[in-house]
C-alpha cells in the first residue's frame, strides 16, 4: 500500500518537473525569437542613423546666385564644379558623371542654407559638408561589398604597352608566374601613389592590367609597401559603385575629407526617392496627427459608452445584444474598418483622401471597442461598496459614478486606452484603404493635409529595391518599436502607480 503511494508521489513530482520544464522551454524559445528579431532589426537599422558627407571648398560665385532670390540660386552647379575641380585628371564626360554621382542630389542643400543664413559669404570661399549619395554612403559603411586591402610584399614592375594596350605587371624574376609572385588575381586593383590599375588577366606569365587612374609614366617599379592590392567580394558589374568611384572614395577617406555624423536628417525630413535624403519626420507627424484624432474621438466616446453600459443601462436583451456586438467589433479584421472608412468617410462624406483626420476616424472606430471593453472592466473592478457608500449618504447615481467610481476606475481606463493607442499607432491595413499609402514627401501641416504614418512608411520602404532603403526600413521599425515600448511603459507605470487593493 505504501509503495503504491510512493510511486504516485514520485509520478506527481515528475509531472510537475515536466510541466516546469515545458514552461521554461516555451519561455526560452519565445525570448530567443524576440531576441533574434530585435538583433536583426537593430543590426540592419543602425547604419541608417549615421551618414557620410565630404567637405568641399566651394567658391560661392556671385554669378550663380541672384541676391533677390537666394533660394533659387544654382548651388548644385557650384558644388559639383568645386568637387570636379579637385580631380583635374578626370576630363572625360563619363568620368565627370561618375564623380558627381558620388554626391547626393540634395548635397547642395547645405550650401543653400548657409547662403540664406548669411548672404555675406557670396563671393567668398567656404567649406561645405556635402552629403554623399546613398551608393557612396553604403560603400563607406562597407555594406555594398566587402573590400580587402593587402599591402604588396614584392617589388612590382610596371611597363606600359604600345598604343592603347594597357599595362603589363611583373615581379622581380620574369620566369615565374607574376600572379604568384605578386599575390594578385585578375579583377583586383593595384593601387599606388599617383595611379591605379585593374588586373584584367594573365598572359605568358605576365599580368595584364588596364588603367583606372593613369599612373605617372616615370614610374616603372614599386618596392614592397609602396603599393597595395584592393579586392572586392562582388565584381564591378554587380556593384553600384565602380572601381574608379571606390578608389576616389578611398582617396577622400585617406585624406580625412569624409565626415561621419549622426543622421539628424532621418528625423528631420520627409520621405524622398533618394534613400540618403529620406526621413521619417513626415510619417511620424502623420502618425501623431492620426492617433491624436483617433484618441480625441475614441476616449470620450468609449468612456461614456462604458459608463452608461456598466452603470446606468438597464440589463435587458438590448444591452446584452450591444455588449455582444461590441465584443464582435473588437474582433473585426482591421482592413474592414479601412473599407468602411473608404465607403463612408471618403465616398459618402467626401473627406479628403490620405488625410490624418480620416485615418483618425477609422482608427477611432478600430480602438473604440478595445477602450469600451477595458473601461467596463475597470469600472466593474471598483467594488460596489463604494457606490453604496455614496448612495447611502444621499448622492445621486450620477454623483456616485462621476465623483467616486469613475475616478477610481480611471487608471484602469487609461491603461486600456494606452494599449488601444499603441494598437492604433501600429495599424497599417485600414490606412492603406483610405490612401495614406501614397508617396508623400512633405511633412503634413494639419489634419487635412496628405500624410502617411510610420507603419505604412515601413511598408512603403520595405518594397523599394535600393539597398539603402533596407537600412531605412529597419531604422523606421526601430523608431516605431521605441514609440510602442514607451506607450506600454506608460501603461505599466500608470497601473503600478495607481494600483489599489480593496
Amino acid at each position, binding site marked *: 500500500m505504501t509503495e503504491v503511494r510512493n510511486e504516485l508521489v514520485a509520478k506527481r513530482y515528475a509531472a510537475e518537473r515536466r510541466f516546469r520544464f515545458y514552461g521554461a522551454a516555451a519561455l526560452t524559445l519565445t525570448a530567443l525569437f524576440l531576441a533574434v528579431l530585435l538583433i536583426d532589426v537593430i543590426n540592419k537599422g543602425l547604419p541608417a542613423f549615421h551618414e557620410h558627407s565630404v567637405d568641399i571648398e566651394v567658391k560661392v560665385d556671385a554669378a550663380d546666385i541672384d541676391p533677390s532670390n537666394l533660394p533659387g540660386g544654382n548651388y548644385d552647379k557650384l558644388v559639383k564644379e568645386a568637387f570636379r575641380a579637385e580631380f583635374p585628371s578626370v576630363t572625360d564626360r563619363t568620368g565627370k558623371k561618375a564623380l558627381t554621382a558620388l554626391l547626393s542630389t540634395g548635397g547642395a542643400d547645405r550650401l543653400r542654407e548657409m547662403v540664406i543664413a548669411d548672404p555675406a559669404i557670396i563671393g567668398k570661399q567656404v567649406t561645405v559638408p556635402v552629403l554623399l549619395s546613398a551608393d557612396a554612403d553604403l560603400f563607406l559603411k562597407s555594406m555594398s561589398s566587402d573590400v580587402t586591402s593587402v599591402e604588396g610584399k614584392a617589388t612590382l614592375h610596371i611597363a606600359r604597352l604600345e598604343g592603347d594596350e594597357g599595362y603589363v605587371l611583373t615581379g622581380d624574376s620574369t620566369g615565374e608566374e607574376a600572379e604568384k609572385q605578386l599575390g594578385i588575381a585578375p579583377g583586383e586593383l593595384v593601387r599606388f601613389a599617383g595611379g591605379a590599375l585593374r588586373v584584367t588577366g594573365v598572359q605568358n606569365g605576365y599580368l595584364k592590367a588596364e588603367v583606372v587612374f593613369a599612373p605617372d609614366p616615370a614610374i616603372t617599379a614599386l618596392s614592397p609597401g609602396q603599393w597595395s592590392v584592393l579586392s572586392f567580394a562582388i565584381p564591378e558589374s554587380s556593384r553600384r559603385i565602380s572601381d574608379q568611384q571606390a578608389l576616389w572614395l578611398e582617396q577622400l577617406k585617406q585624406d580625412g575629407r569624409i565626415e561621419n555624423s549622426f543622421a539628424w536628417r532621418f528625423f528631420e525630413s520627409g520621405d524622398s526617392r533618394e534613400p540618403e535624403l529620406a526621413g521619417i519626420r513626415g510619417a511620424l507627424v502623420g502618425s501623431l496627427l492620426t492617433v491624436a484624432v483617433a484618441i480625441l474621438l475614441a476616449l470620450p466616446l468609449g468612456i461614456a459608452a462604458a459608463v452608461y453600459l456598466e452603470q446606468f443601462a438597464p440589463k435587458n436583451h438590448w444591452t446584452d445584444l450591444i455588449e455582444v456586438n461590441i465584443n464582435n467589433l473588437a474582433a473585426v479584421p482591421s482592413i474592414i474598418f479601412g473599407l468602411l472608412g473608404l465607403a463612408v468617410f471618403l465616398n459618402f462624406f467626401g473627406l479628403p483622401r490620405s488625410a490624418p483626420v480620416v485615418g483618425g476616424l477609422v482608427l477611432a472606430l478600430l480602438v473604440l471597442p478595445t477602450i469600451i471593453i477595458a473601461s467596463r472592466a475597470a469600472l466593474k473592478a471598483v467594488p460596489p461598496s*463604494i457606490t*453604496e457608500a455614496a*448612495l*447611502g*449618504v*444621499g448622492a445621486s447615481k450620477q454623483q456616485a459614478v462621476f465623483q*467616486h467610481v469613475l475616478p477610481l476606475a480611471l487608471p484602469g481606463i487609461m491603461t486600456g486606452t494606452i494599449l488601444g493607442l499603441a494598437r492604433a499607432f501600429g495599424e497599417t491595413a485600414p490606412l492603406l484603404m483610405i490612401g495614406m499609402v501614397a508617396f508623400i514627401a512633405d511633412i503634413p501641416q494639419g489634419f487635412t493635409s496628405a500624410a502617411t504614418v510610420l507603419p505604412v512608411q515601413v511598408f512603403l520602404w520595405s518594397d523599394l529595391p535600393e539597398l539603402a532603403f533596407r537600412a531605412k526600413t529597419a531604422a523606421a521599425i526601430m523608431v516605431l518599436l521605441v514609440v510602442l515600448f514607451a506607450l506600454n511603459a506608460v501603461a505599466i507605470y500608470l497601473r503600478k502607480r495607481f494600483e489599489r487593493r480593496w
Partner: protein
Amino acid sequence: MNAPTAPFQTYITPPHPRALSNGKFKITASGVDVHYGEKHAIKNLSIDIPDRAVSAFIGPSGCGKSTFLRAINRMNDTIPGCRVTGDIEVDKHDIYDPKIDVVQLRAKVGMVFQKPNPFPKSIYENVAYGPRIHGLAKDKTELDQIVEQSLRKAGLWEEVKDRLAQPGTGLSGGQQQRLCIARAIAVNPEVILMDEPCSALDPIATAKIEELIDELRQNYCIVIVTHSMQQAARVSQLTAFFHLGTLVEYGDTDEMFTAPQEKRTQDYITGRFG
C-alpha cells in the same frame, strides 16, 4: 394596521412596549413584500419602529432582515430585479411614492454597512462629502465644524484630529466603521440603518461601536441588523425576530429574551436552530 393573514405570520406587538412609553413611531411598514426576481424575500411584513430608540433585527441568515432594512432607505432600488410592494412610511410619508426624492430620503435615512467602506479619500473628505453634496455648509469654517462635530459624535475625533488629511482607508477596521458612522451622521439624518456593523470587527472595536450606538439613540432612530443575540440584548430596546421572510415576533427586548411568546423565537434565542 393590516391584520395578519398568512398562516406563518404571528405579528406580535406588545400592547405597550416599555421602550415606546415616551416616543412615537418613526417608521411604519405594512403589508410589505419584496421580490428578487422569482424569489419572494419578504412576505407581507408589517412593523412599527419607534423614534429615539434602537431596534434590532435578528434572525437566521437569509431571513430577509437585511433586505427589509435596505427597503427602508430604498437601497434595494440599485439591485436589478428587486421589487418592493406594500407601504413603508417614514414620518408618515410613503417613501415609495413616485414624488419622493430618493436622494432626500437617503439623506434623512442614513446607512452604515456591514463592511466598513470609507471612500479612498482623506478622512476629512469622507465626512465632508455628504454635507457638501447636500449644501449643508455655507463656507469652509462651517464645513470644518460639521466634520468635527460628526467625528466627535462618532467618538473618533480625538484619534484622528491630527491626521484628517490622511486616507480613511488607512484606519483600523473599527475606526473605519466609526468613520462611516460619522459620515452618515454628517448629513444630519433622522434614522440610521446599520447592517451588521460589527460583524467585521474585533470585540474591542465592537464594544466601542455598541457604546456609540447607545449614545446615538438619544438623537436618532436606529435600526440595527445583527447576528449576535448578545449584541441585540446589549444595545437594543426593541427586538424583531425574522424567519423565512416573515416577522415572527417583535417587542420589548428584555421581554423577548426572557419570555418569548413564540416557540420559534425561543428556539432561535436558545440556540436550537439558526
